[in-house]
C-alpha cells in the first residue's frame, strides 16, 4: 500500500511511522523494565518491613501481647504493597509455628498452626528447620517468606511470615497503558509532525527535480537549468548535476539540429538554384547563336521568321522552367510537335560543332502527340547535351523521336564508351542531390516518373550507350502544371 503512494509522501509517512513504532517499542520496553523494577522494589520494601517488625516485636512476644503485635502488623502492613487490598499479609508465628497475630486475621487465623504443615499444597519447613530466611516461591508467582525472630541470646522467639499474592507483582496494566498511551499521544502530537516536516524537507528537492524533468522538452533548457534545485546532499546533488547535464546535451543537440536543418535548406536552395540555372543555361547557347544568326542573316524573311520562332520557343521553354518553381503558377503549354526535335538539334548544334560531334536525328511519329512540349524538349535537350559529352570529340550521337497511339519514345545513342547499368544507377543516385554539375539524367528520370513513364539504359545493344525516355501518349498539355 505504501508503495502506491508518491515518493514525496512515502518518506514523511515512513518517518512518521518510524517515530510511532519507536514510541510503541520504547514504551513497551519501559513497561517491562518498570514491571521488573516494581517487583524488586516490592521485595525490597518487604525486607525493610520485616526488619522493622522483628525489631519491634521482640518485647511484645516476650510479654505475650497479641494485641500490640496485631497493632504493629496492622500498621506495618500499611507499608506493604497489596495489603490494603487484601493481597499481602504479615503474621507473627510463635516458636511452635502457630499464628500469634496476623495483619489479616481473617486469612491467617490466630492460633492456627502453619509451619511444618502443607501450605497451599506445598510442604513448609518445621520451626526447627528454619535457621535463616526461608523463601517459598509459589508456582503462581506469589511469594511466602519466613524470617526467624531471635532474642539477643539467640533463642528463637517466633517467626515473621510474609505472604504476597502474585497479583501484587502483576503489572498495573491500566496504569501502564495510560502512560503508554500518553507517551504515544505525545509522540504523535509532537514527533510525527516533526518527522513529517523533516520528510517533506528531505523530499522537496526531489519534487522540484521532478517538476523540472517534467518540463524538459516543453520549455527552453537554458531556463530550466536555472530551476534545478541546489542542495548539499551528495546524492541529490548528483541527480541535479545529471539533470543539468542532460539538459545541456539536449540544448546542444537542438542547436545541432537547427544548424543541420538550416544547412539542408541552404543545400536544397543551392541545388534548386543550380538545377534552374542548368535548365536555363542549356538553351541559352542556342538562343545566343540564333540572335547571332538573326543579326547576320536577318534580312532574309525566311531566316528571320524561323530564327524568331526558334527564339520564341526557347524563351517559352525557359519561361516554363522558371514557372515550375512557382507552385501557384499555372502555365499553359502546347503539345509536342515533331519539329521540336529539330529545334533542339538546332539549339545544340553550336555546342556539337565545337566538339566536332556528328548529330543524326530521326522522327517517326505515326499518331498525334498528346504530351506537353516543355518537359519533352527539356528531356531531349538534356539527353542530347549529355550524349555529346559522352561521345567526346569526333563522336556520333543519334536521336530518334517515335510516337504511336500509346507511347512517345525518345532514344539517344552515343558512340562514347559504353555506360554500364551500375554506372547509370550510381550516376542517377549521385545526381539525386549531391552533384549539382550534371542534372540532366536526374531531371529526365524525375520527369519520366512525373508523367508516368520510364527512363532507362537500353542494355540490349552492347558497344554503345542508348538511353530511352518513354511516356504515355495521352496527357493533354493543359493538364500539365
Amino acid at each position, binding site marked *: 500500500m505504501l508503495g502506491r503512494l508518491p515518493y514525496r509522501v512515502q518518506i514523511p509517512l515512513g518517518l512518521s511511522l518510524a517515530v510511532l513504532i519507536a514510541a510503541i517499542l520504547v514504551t513497551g520496553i519501559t513497561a517491562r523494565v518498570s514491571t521488573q523494577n516494581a517487583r524488586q522494589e516490592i521485595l525490597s520494601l518487604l525486607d525493610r518491613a520485616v526488619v522493622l517488625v522483628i525489631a519491634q516485636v521482640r518485647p511484645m512476644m516476650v510479654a505475650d*501481647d497479641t*494485641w500490640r503485635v496485631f*497493632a504493629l502488623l496492622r500498621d506495618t502492613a500499611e507499608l506493604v504493597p497489596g495489603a490494603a487490598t487484601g493481597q499481602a499479609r504479615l503474621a507473627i508465628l510463635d516458636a511452635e509455628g502457630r499464628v500469634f*497475630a496476623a495483619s*489479616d*486475621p*481473617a486469612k491467617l487465623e*490466630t*492460633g492456627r498452626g502453619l509451619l511444618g504443615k502443607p501450605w497451599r499444597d506445598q510442604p513448609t519447613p518445621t520451626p526447627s528447620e528454619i535457621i535463616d530466611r526461608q523463601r517459598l516461591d509459589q508456582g503462581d508467582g506469589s511469594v511466602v517468606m519466613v524470617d526467624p525472630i531471635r532474642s539477643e541470646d539467640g533463642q528463637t522467639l517466633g517467626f515473621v511470615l510474609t505472604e504476597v499474592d502474585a497479583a501484587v507483582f502483576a503489572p498495573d496494566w491500566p496504569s501502564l497503558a495510560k502512560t503508554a498511551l500518553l507517551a504515544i499521544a505525545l509522540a504523535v502530537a509532537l514527533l510525527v509532525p516533526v518527522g513529517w516536516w523533516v520528510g517533506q524537507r528531505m523530499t522537496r528537492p526531489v519534487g522540484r527535480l521532478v517538476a523540472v524533468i517534467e518540463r524538459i522538452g516543453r520549455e527552453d533548457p537554458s531556463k530550466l537549468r536555472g530551476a534545478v534545485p541546489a542542495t548539499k546532499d551528495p546524492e541529490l546533488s548528483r541527480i541535479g548535476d545529471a539533470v543539468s547535464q542532460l539538459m545541456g546535451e539536449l540544448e546542444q543537440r537542438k542547436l545541432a539540429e537547427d544548424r543541420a536543418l538550416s544547412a539542408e535548406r541552404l543545400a536544397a536552395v543551392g541545388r534548386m538554384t543550380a538545377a534552374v540555372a542548368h535548365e536555363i543555361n542549356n538553351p541559352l547557347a542556342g538562343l545566343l547563336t540564333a540572335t547571332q544568326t538573326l543579326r547576320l542573316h536577318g534580312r532574309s524573311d525566311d531566316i528571320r521568321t524561323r530564327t524568331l520562332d526558334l527564339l520564341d520557343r526557347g524563351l517559352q521553354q525557359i519561361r516554363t522552367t522558371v514557372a515550375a518553381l512557382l507552385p501557384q503558377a499555372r502555365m499553359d503549354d502546347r503539345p509536342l510537335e515533331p519539329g521540336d526535335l529539330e529545334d533542339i538539334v538546332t539549339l545544340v548544334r553550336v555546342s556539337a560543332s565545337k566538339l566536332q560531334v556528328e548529330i543524326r536525328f530521326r522522327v517517326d511519329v505515326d499518331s498525334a502527340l498528346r504530351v506537353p512540349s516543355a518537359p519533352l524538349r527539356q528531356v531531349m535537350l538534356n539527353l542530347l547535351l549529355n550524349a555529346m559529352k559522352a561521345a567526346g570529340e569526333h563522336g556520333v550521337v543519334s536521336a530518334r523521336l517515335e510516337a504511336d497511339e500509346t507511347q512517345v519514345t525518345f532514344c539517344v545513342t552515343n558512340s562514347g564508351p559504353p555506360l554500364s547499368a551500375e554506372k547509370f544507377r550510381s550516376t542517377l543516385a549521385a545526381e539525386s542531390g549531391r552533384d549539382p554539375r550534371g542534372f540532366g539524367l536526374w531531371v529526365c528520370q524525375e520527369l519520366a516518373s512525373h508523367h508516368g513513364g520510364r527512363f532507362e539504359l537500353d542494355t540490349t545493344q552492347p558497344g554503345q550507350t542508348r538511353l530511352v525516355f518513354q511516356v504515355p501518349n495521352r496527357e493533354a498539355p493543359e493538364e500539365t502544371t
Partner: protein
Amino acid sequence: MRRRECIASVAAATLWAVRPATAARVDRLQVGLTPVILADQIAFLSRWGRYLGAQVGVEVHFVARESYQSILDLLWSGHVDAAWICGYPFVRFEADLNLLAVPLYQGDPLYQAYLIRSTGAPEGLRGWGDLKDRVLAYSDPLSNSGWLVAQAQLANVGIAPRELKRAFFAHGHRNVAEAVAARLAHAGSIDGYVWETMRLQGMPAVAKTEVIWKSEPFAFPPLVTARRATHPHMERLRAALLGMANDPVGRELLGSLNLSGFSAGASSQFDSIRRQAALVPGSGVTG
C-alpha cells in the same frame, strides 16, 4: 536575658524536677482516665477540663492511660488526684479509695458487660459455652466487664482459661471491639456502655461485631480518690460533676460522653461485682 534572671530560671526548673512525687499542686486538679470511656478525644477532654475548672476554681486536667494499673499507680503516687476506674479495682482496692461519683448511664448508675463476636463469624459461637478452642479478647486485667465477668462466666460454663485456644488483653474496650472486628479474636469481653457509645458514634469496628451475650447490670465504673490524700478542692469537683446535668454546657458535655449525669453513689452499689470477684480465683477479692 540577664544573668540573674537566667540563674533564677535554671534554679526554678531544677526545683520543679526534684520536687517530691507526692507533692501535687493544689492549684490544679488532675483526673486520671482509663478505657472505661473513649478517652482519646483530646478536644472533648480539653473542653470538659475547662468547664470543670470554671466550676471548681482551679485548673482541671485529664490524664489518660490505657492500663487501669497505670492510672492506679498514678493515683497511689499522687500524680493524679482522682481517677475514673472500674468497679472491679474499686472493690479490690476499696480500703485505699474513696468514692467520688458514679456516672448515670441512661438514668441509672448501671451498665452491662457484653460478649461480642464478629459478624459473619463461624456458626456455633453463641455464648460462653462455645468458646472452647476459640480465641478470646479481654480488655484489661483490672476490668470488670473486660476480664472479671469473662472469668466468672467461663467458670460458670465449665471452661478453664487454658482450654481457650488463646486469650489476650487488648488494653481497652475499644481495642476489644477492633480485635473481634478484625477476627484477631473470635469473641471479646467488653464494656456494654463503651460498645454502645462506639455504635452511637458510628465507629466501623462496631459495625463488624455483634452482641451475643449481656450480663446482669453492674454498678457503673466510678470516679474515685485516694483515701489518704485528698485534694482541697475535691468536694467542689464532686459538686461540679453532680451539677453537670443542671446546666446546658454540662448536659452537652454529658451528651458527648453518652451519659445522663453523675450521682454520689454508694459502696453498696458494687456488691454484685464484689460477689462475682469473690468467686473468681486470683481476683484479689475475698468474700
